[in-house]
Each structure stands twice: as structure tokens, then as C-alpha cells.
């Protein structure tokens, strides 16, 4: 990635970003086009990242995590996204999927499962949305009925990243009455009987990353896998999403930076009317605006992260960062296609893919309309 000036809190953060850049350059960059074109999930590559410690960055060292502040973890995601946003999104979703257990599990549950979840070999999924509603999560309909020592879960979850490849699923389901207070969170292993990932969705972008419905056909989950108390599920889900939103903001900043770097390289090489097109003011200003907007989004994201790291309220700032960074990424990726002209519209250049990938970031972890609702309510 081009020279981004970064203020890092510790020397170890510097080492971590250097390791991340090495992995991004050597493992992500050479593979992204190929895997995305074939729609194959790079499971081994994710393991390589896991073995380097990248799948448990914000979590406690007591359970094997790297105990890094969000400020640092997000910049890791950003560097990964600059090379392959699908991988950064996978790391972000996995980190989100570890959140309920890490923050709301009992000591016994954490000791038993958390080291494996964040240890690098396993991959997680987060099942909140349903076919009838994603934004209106408080009215979800997947039902869990207590039978003896188990919950029997029935319903359908939708838009589940890592469906079919995950090793564990956070399933948000209704154990009580209607509304947010009737929702609970279960941590179900992939081999849960009755937990059935469906056929993959044919997505516009992020094609290497499987997204599908997960059918729960009387899935039997031991009651010991209830995370938090019954009825706390909605609160857990929203807390996790505040953090997850920051992860998506980081994906957006990295993706836009990758697009800008590529388009800038092209604009310096491409000659029209006898000079590189970056010297045409119309093009040069478009690139300058992109660089400025990326820097602004990065600053907003890091501001929200630093509030979180300091233990202050950050929910609204996370919503602003997610909203601004993902709208920015859509605009920048659109403009970078424009910089390449016809070449930007064909798959020979990655900006065509970046453009398709940017769109989903405006939708996941709360649509940007939901972010605006969150922000408006805070005013």
C-alpha cells in the first residue's frame, strides 16, 4: 500500500502492521483476482493469517488473543483490505463472531471455547438477519424452545457470511416473548444436528466469500451454549455490531486506498495528448479528492476506535465512521473506474472488482440508512 502516515501507539503495533503488510503483499495480493474470479473461498489462506495471530487481535491475552486496541486492529484490517477486501471482511466477521463469547460468556464458557475460537484454526459466523428482516432485528422470528438440557431451534437465518465454511455460528433466536427482550444468543458448532447451510447466494462482489441462508430445522443446541442470560441476546447483538461497524469502516478505507493506489499508478503511466493523464487537472483533482476523502474517513474511524479503546461511549461515532467510510468507498471506487476510462470497465484491471465490492459495504452490519437513524436519534 502506498505510504500512509500512521501514528501508532506502541512499537509492537508497528511490528504487527509490518507483519500484516508482508502477509498482504505475499499471500493476498497474488491470489485475490484468481480466487474472486473462481468464487473459491481461500480457507488455507485464512489459516495462514490465523497462525500469525490475526484472528484474535482485540481479545484478551489470557485466552490467547493479542490484546490489541481497536485503533491497531482496524489498521490491520485496512491493510488487508487494500490487497483483498474479501479477506479483511472475513477477518472482521470472524472477530465479530468471537465477540459474544468473549464479552458475555461465563468464565467457564470462555475458558472452554475462547482459546479455540481466537486461536487461528477456527472460523466463525454471525447469524442475526432473517429473510423477513435484517434491519429490524428486534422482531426476528427464529424460535428456540428449551427441551431438557437443550434448545431446539427452528427458523431461517439470511445473508450469513461463512455459511457452510464456518466452524461455529452465533445464532440469535427468540426464547421469550416478542420484541428485543425475548431474544437470546446461542453459540452453535458447525456440526450441530439440524443446522443446515443452504446454497450460496450469487453475489455482485466478494464472490470468494460464501454467503447463504442457514436453515435451523429443529437444531439441537446444548443449553450450556447459551451466551449471556435468556433475553440478553439483542443487547449482545447490538454491542457486537457497534464493534463490527468499525471493522466494516476499516474494510472501506482499505478498499478505497487500494483503488486509489491502482488508479494513481495507471494515471502516471497512461499518456494522452502527449503527457500522463494525472497531469490533466480534471484527473489530478479527482485523485486528490479521493486521497482527501480516504484520509478523512480513516481519521473518523480511528477517532471512534480511540473512544472505544478509552472505554468511552463510541456507538454513534462508530455509526458515523461506518456511514462515511462506506459511502466514501463507493464514491472513490466509482471515480477510480472513471480514471481508467474503458479500461476501468473490464475485468483486466481490479478497479472493476473494487467497484462491485464497495457496494456491499454500504449494506452490511447495518445499512447506511440504519446508521443515519442511529446518528439522528443521538442528536
Amino acid at each position, binding site marked *: 500500500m502506498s505510504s500512509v502516515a500512521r501514528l501508532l501507539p506502541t512499537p509492537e503495533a508497528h*511490528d504487527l502492521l509490518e507483519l500484516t503488510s508482508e502477509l498482504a503483499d505475499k499471500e493476498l495480493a497474488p491470489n485475490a483476482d484468481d480466487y474472486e474470479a473462481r468464487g473459491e473461498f481461500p480457507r488455507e489462506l485464512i489459516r495462514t493469517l490465523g497462525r*500469525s495471530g490475526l484472528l484474535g487481535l482485540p481479545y484478551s491475552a489470557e485466552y490467547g488473543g493479542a490484546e490489541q486496541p481497536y485503533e491497531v486492529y482496524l489498521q490491520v484490517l485496512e491493510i488487508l483490505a487494500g490487497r483483498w477486501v474479501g479477506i479483511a471482511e472475513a477477518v472482521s466477521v470472524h472477530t465479530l463472531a468471537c465477540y459474544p463469547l468473549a464479552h458475555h460468556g461465563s468464565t467457564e464458557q470462555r475458558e472452554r471455547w475462547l482459546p479455540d475460537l481466537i486461536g487461528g484454526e477456527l472460523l466463525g459466523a454471525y447469524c442475526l438477519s432473517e429473510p423477513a428482516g435484517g434491519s429490524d432485528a428486534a422482531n426476528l422470528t427464529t424460535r428456540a424452545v428449551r427441551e431438557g438440557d437443550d434448545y431446539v431451534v427452528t427458523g431461517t437465518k439470511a445473508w450469513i457470511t461463512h455459511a457452510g465454511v464456518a466452524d461455529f455460528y452465533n445464532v440469535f433466536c427468540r426464547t421469550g416473548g416478542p420484541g428485543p427482550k425475548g431474544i437470546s444468543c446461542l453459540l452453535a458448532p458447525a456440526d450441530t444436528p439440524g443446522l443446515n447451510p443452504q446454497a450460496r447466494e450469487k453475489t455482485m462482489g466478494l464472490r470468494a466469500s460464501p454467503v447463504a441462508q442457514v436453515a435451523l430445522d429443529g437444531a439441537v443446541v446444548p443449553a450450556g451454549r447459551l451466551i449471556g442470560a435468556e433475553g440478553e441476546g439483542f443487547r449482545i447483538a447490538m454491542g457486537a455490531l457497534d464493534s463490527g461497524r468499525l471493522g466494516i469502516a476499516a474494510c472501506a478505507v482499505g478498499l478505497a486506498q487500494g483503488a486509489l493506489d491502482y488508479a494513481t499508478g495507471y494515471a502516471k503511466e497512461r499518456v494522452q495528448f502527449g503527457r500522463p493523464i494525472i497531469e490533466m487537472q480534471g484527473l489530478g483533482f479527482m485523485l486528490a479528492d479521493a486521497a482527501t476523502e480516504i484520509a478523512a474517513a480513516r481519521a473518523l474511524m480511528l477517532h471512534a476506535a480511540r473512544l472505544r479503546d478509552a472505554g468511552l461511549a463510541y456507538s454513534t461515532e462508530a455509526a458515523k465512521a461506518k456511514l462515511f467510510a462506506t459511502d466514501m468507498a463507493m464514491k472513490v471506487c466509482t471515480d477510480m473506474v472513471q480514471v481508467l476510462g474503458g479500461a476501468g470497465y473490464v475485468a483486466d484491471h481490479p478497479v472493476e472488482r473494487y467497484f462491485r465490492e464497495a457496494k456491499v459495504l454500504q449494506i452490511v452490519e447495518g445499512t447506511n440508512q440504519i446508521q443515519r437513524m442511529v446518528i439522528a436519534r443521538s442528536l
Partner: protein
Amino acid sequence: MKIVVLVKQVPDSGAERNLRADDNSVDRASANNVINEMDEYAIEEALRLQEAHGGEVTVLTMGPDRATESIRKALSMGPDGAVHVLDDALPGTDYLGTSRVLAAAIGTLSPDLVICGAEATDARGQVMAHMLAERLGFAALTGARKLTVEGAQLTVERQTEEGYEVVTAATPAVVSVWDTINEPRYPSFKGIMAAKKKPVDTKSLADLGVSADQVGWGGSATTVLSHSKRPARSAGVKVTDSGEGGVALVDYLSSEKFV
């Protein structure tokens, strides 16, 4: 099993490299210095043996102060500790002098096995494993693409131009490896943190009982008298097709033994 891995810091082979005008030595000051690539395979092989058979892996480097960066990088992959031979008298030391110093350092560690890269990307001599084995009285198993250890018995598939030879020896031995032997791991973040706390034992020539006149410019048996830049690539052969272009192309390819 006690294993010593040789690690050399070299200028990045992917970047522009130069020899110095004044003494014809490799210009290390202006280059981006990295671990010699082949040495990462040697480290990986040592770590795999340690995982399978237990024991201890020590990195050994001879080099200037800044070689510390490469030592820490090597340690972040997993070795237990390092020895850094550092002495103002060392610059200019040739292969023979280097092997004298490294053999003395290895002698203080009494390993069962010394593993090194088959060559370094700066000078590409491919002689260090042989020289060390000779000085130490160890077996030399060089150019390995596979290494198997059963007790004190070593079996190596030694890569050749045509295929490979199977050679065996008992420990102690020096094994040099090619990049076909394994796939080196990336360091982990925890490994990088742990490497900062691992012991690096700095040794001077005096500590090793090597006198300054046996090394450096004065103590070297070989001297580089002059050097020149590689000539620029000449223009290729141009075939103008006037109906016979295909034949001309085949003639050219055939004369260069491509077909």
C-alpha cells in the same frame, strides 16, 4: 537434538545491488538488508526437526551491528536464541576467514547438526557448508531437498542437475538446503513479541580465540581486484517477415536450443 542455523544478512536481491568503488566489497550501507532467502528454509527445517525430535535451535550470524534486525526476524520464526559474532576486524573477511570464525563459534555450541542455506544471494559461493564441515570434522550433506533424521542417522536427498542423490551420514553434520525442501512459516505476532526477549549472545573474535590477523582484508586468502557493471542487455535479433519469417524464427529457436 541441538541445532545451529546459519543466518546471513544480505542486500535484498529484489532491489538494485552494488559493489563499493573503494574496496570492491558488497555495498551494505545503501541497500535494504534482509535475511538471505535460503536461510529461511534452513530455519524452517530446523524448527520442524525440533518439533519432531525436541532439542534446541540456535541462530548463528556473523555480521555488523545492523545484522541484529535479521537475527530478531529469524528468532520471530521460533528459534530459542542466537549468537552474533560482531567485531570491528571482520569487514573484508573472505570465505576461508568466515568459515574459520563460524567454525570457532559452532565449536562453542557443540551442536549435533548445523543447517544453512545452500547459497547466499550476495556472493552465491555455495562453499560454506563444505568449509565448515572440513574445519569441524563434521559430515557435509550439501544441497538438500529433503532431510530425514532417525536417531543419529541423517538421510539427505541431494539435488543435482539431473535429479537427486541419496546420501547418509551420522551426526554431527553440516546440511545445506535449497528452497525446495519446505515452505517457511511466517512469523506470528506472538513470535515477534517473544523474539524481543530471546537471548542474543554477542561474541568478539577474542571470545572465540580467533586473532584479528586471520580475518578482515589482511587475513583473507582471496582479494577482489576489480569489478565492473554488468553490460547492458544487447538488442535482440529482429526477424523481418517477407514470407520466410516462420522458418527464420524456428532456425533461431533451434540454434539457441529452445526447440
